[in-house]
């Protein structure tokens, strides 16, 4: 008697998801001693765009098979983003940190992340289009460059079966495919983010976090300090619709919101 056991797994993928811990985006940001006062932050969360990246990665391996390595760069408290990912089913967790790493420049961050991505064996890297704290958007493309990989930025839709991504284009958007290895940076997608459950939380308790470090050299950027944004000028009132051209001009030139 011969039983054929066939396991069909198309395009099994190894995905590294880069997750950053940031203050809750609704939190008030206070300045203390010329820097943002992290000790005043009461709630730390996974950067929102990174959550969409993680959701896409989970959907991708559900469709294709494979596994996810969640990677974060941050101090001890950043373990929480990995535990939260573990509660959603991610089994490989890596945190990168080193002494005096509070103010890394873009190159140092990318270098450390690339080391961890290489070690994970991932051929796909998913991350948010930018972090909710520094808002830079350099990490995805920079990591891609160092990996010699392609990078699709600001992806808003993702199709696991065809491995295609929708990104913004001058006239709307466009669906693209990309050769592997690749880095994909996600903006908000249509996917509902999955919620953890108690079973997942119990599992996450057992999940091991690998703590690694890298020799990232010295920073080429001097962080002089942070400040509060300029106070807005007092409100102005205008009489009648004749003033609207002036208001629109102010919105463009003074408020810079148009």
């Amino acid at each position, binding site marked *: 008697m011969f039983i054929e056991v066939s396991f069909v797994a198309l395009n099994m993928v190894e995905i590294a998801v880069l997750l950053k811990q940031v203050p*809750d985006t*609704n939190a*008030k*940001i206070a300045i203390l001693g010329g820097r943002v006062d992290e000790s005043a932050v*009461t*709630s730390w969360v996974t950067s929102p765009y990174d959550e969409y990246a993680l959701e896409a990665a989970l959907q991708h391996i559900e469709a294709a098979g494979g596994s996810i390595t969640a990677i974060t760069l941050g101090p001890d408290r950043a373990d929480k983003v990995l*535990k*939260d990912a573990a*509660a959603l089913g991610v089994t490989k967790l890596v945190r990168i940190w080193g002494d005096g790493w509070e103010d890394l420049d873009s190159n140092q961050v990318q270098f450390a992340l690339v080391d961890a991505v290489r070690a994970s064996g991932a051929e796909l890297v998913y991350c948010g289009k930018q972090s909710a704290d520094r808002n830079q958007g350099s990490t995805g493309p920079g990591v891609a460059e160092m990996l010699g990989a392609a990078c699709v930025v600001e992806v808003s839709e993702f199709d696991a079966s065809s491995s295609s991504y929708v990104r913004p284009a001058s006239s709307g958007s466009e669906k693209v495919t990309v050769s592997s290895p690749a880095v994909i940076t996600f903006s908000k997608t249509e996917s509902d983010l999955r*919620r*953890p*459950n*108690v*079973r997942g*939380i*119990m599992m*996450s*308790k057992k999940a091991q976090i690998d703590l690694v470090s890298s020799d990232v050299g010295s920073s080429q950027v001097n962080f002089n300090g942070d400040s509060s944004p300029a106070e*807005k000028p*007092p*409100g*102005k*009132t205008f009489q009648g619709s004749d003033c609207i051209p002036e208001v629109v001009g102010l919105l463009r030139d003074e408020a810079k919101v148009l």
Partner: protein
Amino acid sequence: MSQTSCRLFKGEDMVYEALDFYDVDSQLSEEEIMVRDMVRDWVDAEVLPKIEHACRDGVFPDEWRVALGEMGVLGAPLDGYGCPGLSYVAYGVICRELERGDSGLRSFASVQGSLAMYPIWDFGSEEQKNKYLPKMASGDLIGCFGLTEPDYGSNPGGMITKAEDKGDHYILNGAKMWITNGTISDLAIVWAKLDGVIRGFIVETGDEGYSAPEMKGKHSLKASVTSELVFQDCKIPKDRILPGVKGLKGPFSCLNNARYGISWGALGAAQACFHSAKEYTLSRIQFDVPIASYQLIQNKLAWMLREITKGQLLALELGKKKDDGSWIPEHISLAKMNNVDIALEIARMARDMHGANGILDEYCIMRHMANLESVKTYEGTHDIHNLILGRHITGIQSFTRSE
């Protein structure tokens, strides 16, 4: 006009920041904090946007049952048979976060976990546990708890619902009242006298002679289903009796757990009211300044802070006692009574601070206030808990005139 913009609230969003003045939650384990955040996020995303409509329509949205099952929080402190196996502290935290949404939502979870799952888990047969508990933990089966009767509330021992042994089956006759989840339940844990002794029975929806009409017209717990249970020669198989308990100890064991959850839950309602009162009074301008700058308002906010903080410490200490087994029922009476009492007072005070706006369903406070009126009465009235403590202090029971 060209006056200075009022920027009193710059940068502060409407986001819920849980009041935790003494950093009580820092004593929670990593797992308990993850459970807290899971439930809190769900309440923000799925409950708060829908609760006012649920109240207007007088329904408990079925999707909440599904979500509670998917999150795996039903029967939180029970272990095995598909149950979560969390700590009692975690169960308390879950109740607190659910009741921050609505007392009716927390009531659903309390009844399912403490009043319906718990007696099966503690007093049920192996077959009963395997049959019911996994599906109750997943939310696929809903349970309710029938103890109180129209004429027997604080005095449940006087119940008249009775069971008769008919050889190969039991016959139940009587009625239960004020039963949360009754109409939407798949099974009821019914306490009835068998040969004069209180026993627990599992009655399934569809059993001959059993009905559960909904009680309408509540001004409180409007998003929760409240029902009567009616037994008219209700015939149930012999294997539906809970073999493991006799007497009032059975229902009281269940109530201890439910009351414990309420002692945490009420704090969630209180914190929601405090949050709303703080936000409102900081943004409401009268006589050119926010009303929060007036001493009368600050006095009220300070009182709320004080009572909530004390209540939080009480609940956490009680939770630790539940987990290490050093609790006595009187500990629970104290916490249930105190925390519901202050929550109701805070809700009333918050209503006052919101002025006329406070009566609108744009704000949570009047809903919480009306809900808490029920919570103060159910699961042992405020006064009955006082009498339980009075008996504990003096050794003299004052419930009855006789004995």
